[in-house]
């Protein structure tokens, strides 16, 4: 059982990092969420959650390359940790058990 319970947005960000598989940084996470969920997300909201997930040791980060479009600033890539993967799986199992517990009506 994971130590942490995920909030809805934390879960979305953590899953998106897992989807992006090593290519997750601020802008790519925002775009992925906007494309997949049709939901407007700001960099500020993402950053807050990313820092929180990092504090919980569910993700880790490292600087990547700088590009011209980024004004020569480096990206910070996020990857999901083993603890993060366990937490995501636990969350999924909890959800599924709730779905399965809904009584079938005729």
């Amino acid at each position, binding site marked *: 059982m994971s130590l942490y319970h995920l909030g809805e947005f934390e879960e979305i960000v953590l899953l998106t990092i897992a989807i992006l598989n090593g290519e997750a*940084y*601020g*802008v790519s996470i*925002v775009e992925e969420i906007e494309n997949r969920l049709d939901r407007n997300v*700001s*960099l*500020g*909201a993402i*950053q*807050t959650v990313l*820092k*929180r997930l990092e504090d919980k040791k569910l993700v880790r980060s490292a*600087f990547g390359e*700088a*590009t*011209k*479009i*980024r*004004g020569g*600033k*480096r*990206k*910070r890539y996020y990857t999901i940790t083993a603890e993060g993967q366990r937490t995501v799986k636990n969350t999924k199992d909890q959800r599924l058990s709730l779905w399965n517990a809904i009584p079938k009506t005729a």
Partner: protein
Amino acid sequence: MKIERNKKPPRIPLAFFRWYCHPDLREELEGDLFERYYKQIDKFGLSKARMLFIREVILLFRPAIIGNVFQLTRKIVPDMKKLQWLKLIALNLLIIVCMILPFLPGPYDKLSYGLSGAAQLTGFAGLLLVPIGVLWLIQEIKKLAGNNRPLNNWSNGYYFAITAICICTFISLVLVLMLLVVVGLSAAAIGLAIIIFTIYKLSFIISNLKQRESKSFNAAPLYLLSTPIIAFAVYTFLLGPVSNYGRSYAIKQGEKLVDAIESYYTRQGIYPESIESLYYHYPVPKPSVIGIDEFRYERNGNAYNISFIQWQHVGATEEIVMYNKNDEHNVKGHFASYNADQPHWRYYWLD
């Protein structure tokens, strides 16, 4: 992607972002802002991309990301001496107490109007000092941030102090005029003497600022910022409820007077001619609110009116609160009237 010179992100929001962002986050976040901005130019056009850039910068202004403001603010706390904090808190508490004084329980004191009006005006007029306080505080924080440039008349606070003292003197003279009108010549003379004494004392402190070499934190801008803002907030949010409390408290005392009058009626078969007629037989209560002088009584047909006048706040009106057991209240010249919480009591606002 070709980045044209005229497509650079808006400078002022970018400068604001660079100022507030925590240094550890600045590189990645600035890169993200730039990348998103240039992608949005391709998607939405330049003007919408600029708007979205500004929006992103504003939405990034949150505790997890802000670094500079908190870091610099933290520098102030250890630099402020305990006595400076106590003085700051004491002054602000004094302003608050003065503002609500006429509405608190206690013996009547006419001076409370003047004190409350002066404190309320401090809140309004003192807002003029807030921009000076902000600029001065920025200078003080910059000074603490440790640049080694020698102090000039701006960075040592001399010009800020001169500007603030000019505005304060103007405000104080207006307050003295108000005291003259509301309370009288003696209160105005005392007020004027206090102003002259204060300016005399401050002139030494201000001239010391000019020769100041120390880079320790000067708490003066905190006074310029906190006092008007707190006074204004109390005026806006607290004065209404406190005024209601004062009215209800006086009405409770008024109910005792009603009981005394009704007892008199039971014994004598008529209502008393005046409130003084009750003195020999019944205890006659006072309103017991600092800003309310006395109950007024008059016979009105088969009933009677009991009323008192409650001073309202600056910029508002005089309020007459009246009791009539038949609800035949008659106050002329009011522009609004409301039922009080207690039955048969109404209050009227007059021009």
